[in-house]
């Protein structure tokens, strides 16, 4: 009898479940060796890095202090951007300039506090959020247009625009938008109370956190249950099959870039409103780039980015904790 070894056509169920766990285990082992190489006790370091931020929860929960808030606030921009990127990457649209779209959104949204400082109305917040999203979309429209019209790689154009947006922000806060009463610091006027997103109760959890959860859920629904989601997945897996089905490649490039850019812009303005409080030369610790990892870690599933966003937010907090208690660079 001849035995033939045939490759499975699909991964086994078991592997689908355990492969993320293997990835986490490998990360921990690699991280442990890195700490060892830096002359630290790897177990202690991993504990500080990953469990310390969570431990706060147990110790301080009783004292009306809710450090998980910090986690959620840090995770919100990561999820908001990551969910959009997950959709774009599913369609093989490689937007890696989310950091730039975040910056552009923050800039356009800040037009309200800078030029309409005294405009106080229920519409103020809506206008700021809308301008933020539009800013991100406009910035993302450039690579989309260049890709469709000239075939220029969106990977490179969107990334180049990150540098351009950061230099634009730098120019604005040092030049025309600098707060005249700000003692020459490179920053705009501080946003007023009515230019800040509402928070839940006494916490620091702001509306942006809720928006992130909604966005992730809505995009997950779109990908799983709507024709648009099917179109995106088809064009991603097989552009040829997508073309035969009558789906437009150019259309999906526009859709994915505007969607992910708009969400990044929203994250940018929300971050500036509630965490930074004004425009300054640096407004994000690289959320747009970390969100790329979030999208992949969430296996390009918008709901997966919720978990991945929280996981990487832990590493931001853990990095801060490690800087304090171990003296390690974040």
């Amino acid at each position: 009898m001849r035995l033939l070894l045939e490759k499975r056509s699909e991964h086994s169920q078991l592997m689908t479940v355990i492969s993320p766990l293997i990835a986490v285990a490998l990360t921990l082992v690699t991280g442990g060796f890195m700490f060892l190489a830096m002359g630290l006790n790897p177990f202690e370091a991993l504990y500080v890095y990953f469990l310390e931020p969570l431990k706060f929860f147990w110790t301080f929960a009783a004292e009306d202090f809710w450090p998980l808030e910090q986690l959620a606030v840090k995770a919100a921009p990561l999820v908001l951007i990551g969910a959009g990127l997950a959709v774009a990457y599913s369609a093989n649209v490689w937007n890696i300039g989310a950091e730039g779209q975040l910056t552009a959104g923050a800039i356009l949204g800040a037009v309200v506090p800078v030029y309409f400082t005294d405009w106080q109305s229920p519409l103020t917040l809506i206008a700021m959020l809308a301008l933020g999203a539009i800013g991100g979309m406009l910035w993302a429209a450039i690579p989309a247009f260049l890709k469709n019209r000239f075939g220029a790689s969106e990977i490179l154009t969107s990334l180049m625009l990150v540098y351009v947006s950061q230099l634009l922000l730098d120019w604005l806060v040092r030049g025309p938008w600098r707060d005249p009463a700000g003692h020459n610091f490179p920053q705009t006027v501080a946003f007023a109370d009515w230019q800040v997103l509402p928070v839940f109760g006494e916490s620091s959890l702001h509306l942006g956190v809720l928006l992130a959860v909604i966005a992730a859920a809505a995009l997950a629904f779109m990908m799983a249950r709507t024709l648009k989601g099917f179109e995106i997945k088809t064009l991603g897996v097989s552009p040829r099959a997508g073309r035969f089905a009558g789906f437009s490649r150019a259309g999906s490039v526009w859709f994915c870039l505007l969607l992910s850019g708009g969400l990044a812009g929203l994250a940018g303005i929300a971050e500036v409103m509630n965490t930074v409080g004004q425009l300054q030369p640096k407004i994000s610790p690289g959320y747009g780039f970390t969100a790329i990892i979030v999208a992949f870690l969430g296996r390009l599933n918008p709901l997966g980015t919720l978990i991945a966003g929280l996981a990487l937010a832990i590493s931001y907090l853990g990095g801060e904790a490690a800087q304090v208690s171990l003296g390690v660079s974040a």
Partner: protein
Amino acid sequence: MSELLAIVLTIITASTPLLLAAIGELVVERSGVLNLGVEGMMAIGAVCGFGAALASGSPYLGILAAMAAGAALSLLFAFLTVTLVSNQVATGLALTLLGLGLSGLIGESFVGQPGVKLERLHIPGLSDIPYLGPILFGQDLLVYAALAITAAVAYLLFRSKLGLVIRAVGDSHQSAHALGYGVIPVRYACVVFGGTCAGLAGGYLSLAYTPQWIENMTAGRGWIALALVVFGSWLPWRVALGAYLFGTVMILGFAVQTKGLGIPPQFLSSLPYLVTIIALVVISGNRALTRANTPACLGQPFVPDR
């Protein structure tokens, strides 16, 4: 005139790292692999080169360390994309993020330390010729090395059997495989060559261009190198021309800045990135040019059938 000479000399040092990284990536892409990790490999090369030179006092040992570091990171990339057939775009992005993060970690204690500078050559007599001497005979070793590597790549790719095999692997891996050429070893070798060049380019930044270590000192040069490969439509001498054009744009920006014409410095700093976009648009829009030279299997995974 001496001001002009200084500008020309700076242009050459600014162009060399771009050329080194781009020529390496050109070979990688000619073999059909798209490595978006150039920026990360440059950063690792820069920090390791700086550290090794600082520890040993020799810039040449620094150069070797930079090359080794870039090669090591690219070997990881080759293992993931060629052996494990992971998505090249995603893996390349991850490699960049890893390289940038790791370089910040390694280089933490190097910040603010004076580095070891790779000195310019001085050939008595020749280097003293006014104007032409310093430009032709008074550069550091790596300026000549970059041009020599370009010449070697141009020769090997288009005038040797090895080059034919590399291009065959990049244009149709199935045919190359059917003819009995080892697609996987060829790709490994090309990826590691690219990583070595990227590491060298990073080392050049921290040893010759600005002999110090600053976090994120690569400042997007790895990405510009990737764009240069497209700009040069995968042809070595065009890539070299592109690298020197970009170096010129970068330095002229600085030169205008010192003249103080009232142009915001941020605008001048953003010029290289804007020029990159324009260059990409011009070249990518020219279908005839790109179609002739783009490796047909660029970015496509290869799984040998049995």
